[in-house]
């Protein structure tokens, strides 16, 4: 198994035991899209500070589950979610909870870079301004600068903050979107295949950035690239046909998968 050898050596050690600091906990989560049963009885504990990767073939439900964590599925009329998801022991499907505040705590980076067609500054400043995080213009400037720095794009854009965000290259746009997500200092950052529209160089930069951000944030990333999962994540969850088949430390998962389907998928025999 050449590939798993490679991926094993590239994988980083986990920052700590998962069960101790579980940030996001899902219990018996089921999702229906109308008649379609998209996600079946998912149970998972996701630790704080670190990267958890969701992998699996197309249509397996990994993106669906990701979008359950910030209730983005609410915008789809036919979608129905049952079960329980908590973040920091707070039930996010509690009817009393304001979904907008939840989304401020759970940032999201999408598959295709989607900066607002506004200036770079405005892109980052939108969230903080919306939530009243900055008290003054100076505060806002500081938040924008800090976010852009943490998204390692500051040096590239510091002289053209008033230019349109859509004028940047694809990789830069995606880092701008990450900056926009971290500007509201969320607890969790969800990334839905953030590199699938990018070239290898831009991908490498984003992966570096994810490594860096993992020190401070709980990051959950959906990816189609096994190598990427192996490179950036400490824990991996494998989804198949709406079921969470296997979940564990990335190292262990890529070297010694428990489930034969996992074995088959990560070695490239199907999917």
């Amino acid at each position, binding site marked *: 198994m050449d590939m798993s050898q490679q991926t094993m050596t590239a994988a980083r050690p986990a920052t700590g035991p998962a069960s101790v600091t579980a940030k996001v906990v899902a219990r018996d989560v089921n999702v229906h899209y109308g008649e379609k049963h998209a996600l079946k009885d998912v149970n998972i504990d996701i630790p704080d500070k670190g990267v958890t990767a969701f992998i699996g073939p197309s249509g397996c439900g990994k993106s669906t589950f990701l979008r359950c964590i910030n209730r983005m599925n609410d*915008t789809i009329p036919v979608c129905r979610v049952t079960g329980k998801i908590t973040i920091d022991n707070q039930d996010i499907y509690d009817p009393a909870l304001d979904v907008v505040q939840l989304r*401020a705590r759970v940032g999201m980076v999408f598959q295709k870079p989607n900066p607002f067609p506004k200036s770079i500054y405005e892109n980052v400043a939108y969230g903080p301004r919306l939530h009243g995080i900055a008290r003054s213009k100076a505060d806002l400037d500081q938040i924008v600068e800090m976010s852009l720095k943490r998204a390692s794009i500051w040096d590239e854009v510091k002289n053209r903050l008033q230019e349109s965000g859509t004028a940047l290259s694809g990789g830069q746009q995606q880092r701008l979107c990450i900056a926009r997500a971290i500007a509201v200092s969320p607890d969790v950052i969800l990334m839905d295949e953030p590199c699938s529209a990018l070239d290898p160089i831009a991908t490498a930069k984003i992966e570096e950035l994810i490594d860096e951000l993992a020190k401070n944030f709980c990051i959950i990333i959906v990816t189609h690239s096994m190598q990427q999962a192996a490179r950036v994540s400490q824990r991996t969850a494998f989804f198949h046909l709406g079921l969470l088949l296997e979940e564990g430390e990335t190292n262990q998962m890529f070297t010694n998968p428990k489930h034969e389907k996992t074995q088959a998928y990560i070695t490239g025999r199907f999917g």
Partner: protein
Amino acid sequence: MTDIAGTDGPAFRLDMTSDAAKRRIRKRYAAEARFKAYGLAALAVTTLFVAALVFDIIRNGIPAFTQHSLMMDVAVPADFVPADKRSNPVAIRSADYFPVTRDALKAAIPGIQSRQGERTLVRLLSSGAADELRDRLVADPGLIGKTVRVPLLLSDDADLYFKGSGTPIIKRNGVGTATPSGTTGEITILTSSNDFAAEVVAIKQAAKAKADTLAIEAARLATFGGQSLAPRIAEINAEIAELRARVDSPKVEEVLDGKLPSKLVEINGGLVKLTRLTDISVAGEVLLPLTSAAEAKPGNWRVVTYATPESNRKVSDLEIGYLERLREKGFVENRFNTRFFTAGDSREPELAGIRGALIGSLLTLAVTLVLCVPIGVLAAVYLEEFAAKNRLTDIIEVNINNLAAVPSIVFGLLGLAVFLNFFNFPRSAPLVGGLVLALLVLPTIIIAARAALKAVPPSIKEAALGVGASHQQAVFHHVLPLAMPGIMTGTIIGMAHALGETAPLLMIGMVAFIVDVPGALTDAATVLPVQIYLWSDLPEQAFKLKTAGAIMVLLGFLFLMNGAAIYLRKKFERRW
């Protein structure tokens, strides 16, 4: 492993060389060429129609933007307005300007004695001829008692004559020496050569042609037989005999009537209209008096032909005589017709303008715009972004689409029933017109706005939701601003549609003849397309030009609005 072109099955291979394959390619090429030809033909036909339409409108409309007037020195008598009332503009305005302009005109063409001649001369001027003089005097009462050089507006027929709707004029020099018998009234002119032989021959030929036509008619009647037609046939035959006798005898005096081209003689500074003529002598009526009854040498007098018979034109020989004389003396000026843009409607074509209709259109569109944009945009935002997708919203959506296709006159009937009869709003008012047009345009704007909202990529909304914006914030901060260019484009096109709409406004009384320029939303008014419709219905030839001119103005506004829509679309076009 399986192979499509396996050993056992038939070989399914790509065939590119056989005759069948070549036929297939030829057929495809032919089909493509045919399609291209159809497309080009359709385009050519469209272009042709549009070009013909535009050309015709411009050809007819351009003359409406100029107007002929007589630049004259008008002597304003010192007692025109009493000295103590000169500070009062009303007194100056209400003075009688007719004698002043009449005297100026009579000074330009002296020697006219007959009442009829004088009346014809005065009628060459428009009833509003003195308007400019009056404005000058009001602005500067010091001009009273002086001679003022002002343009006097010509009547519509005189204006049209100078715009080329009169008659071709042919002149030739006399060959013999001509001797008139007098200077005014009925005179005869003798010539030493047979100068009028050609005219006499022409008249005889016309008589012969008429006899031949009558002969055919008589023969046709004769085939029916019967006693009842016999007297009529006899009558015709008598007429034929008379005509033929005239044609055959060369020395008989011929009479010119209004159905033949007019013949005139220019001699000794005067103009004589011929009524009876032989080869060497003519009798006629003096239109412009001669300076003397002295004989005129060959080359010093002329035979003039107005090729269009008098009965076929709007201006008489006398009027042409006056107008040509005024032109020779350099009084006639063709100037830009500012009145067309500054005056309201009028029954006199030369006084009519589009200002009233233009202001009416602007007021009406203002009402439409103020109602349509907020209602239309909010309805679209709600339906597109917030409304639950259920049967009710489906029905609403279908009905909005259907409303866009309802004939516009139906909206007019609705306006009549609801706004006029039920709410008792004033008739013919831009307020009601705007309300009716708003109903008409609303579906268009809602559809355009929904399309524009739908065209904003969902990723933008997701991005906003992702950083913690509520649905409403996402829509109003991001989706709506991005859809705005599209909404604006739809709105402008809707407004252009409203600007060109006639039928519903007829129903609510905006088709009335309204002279005043409207000043408020409840004043009686009309709009540009209705004004065009009104003018196109009037019998005066000059209104035909006005109609084309008004169409040009309307089209100009429509082009402007559509241009603005295209500009907005291009300027704010975004690449996501």
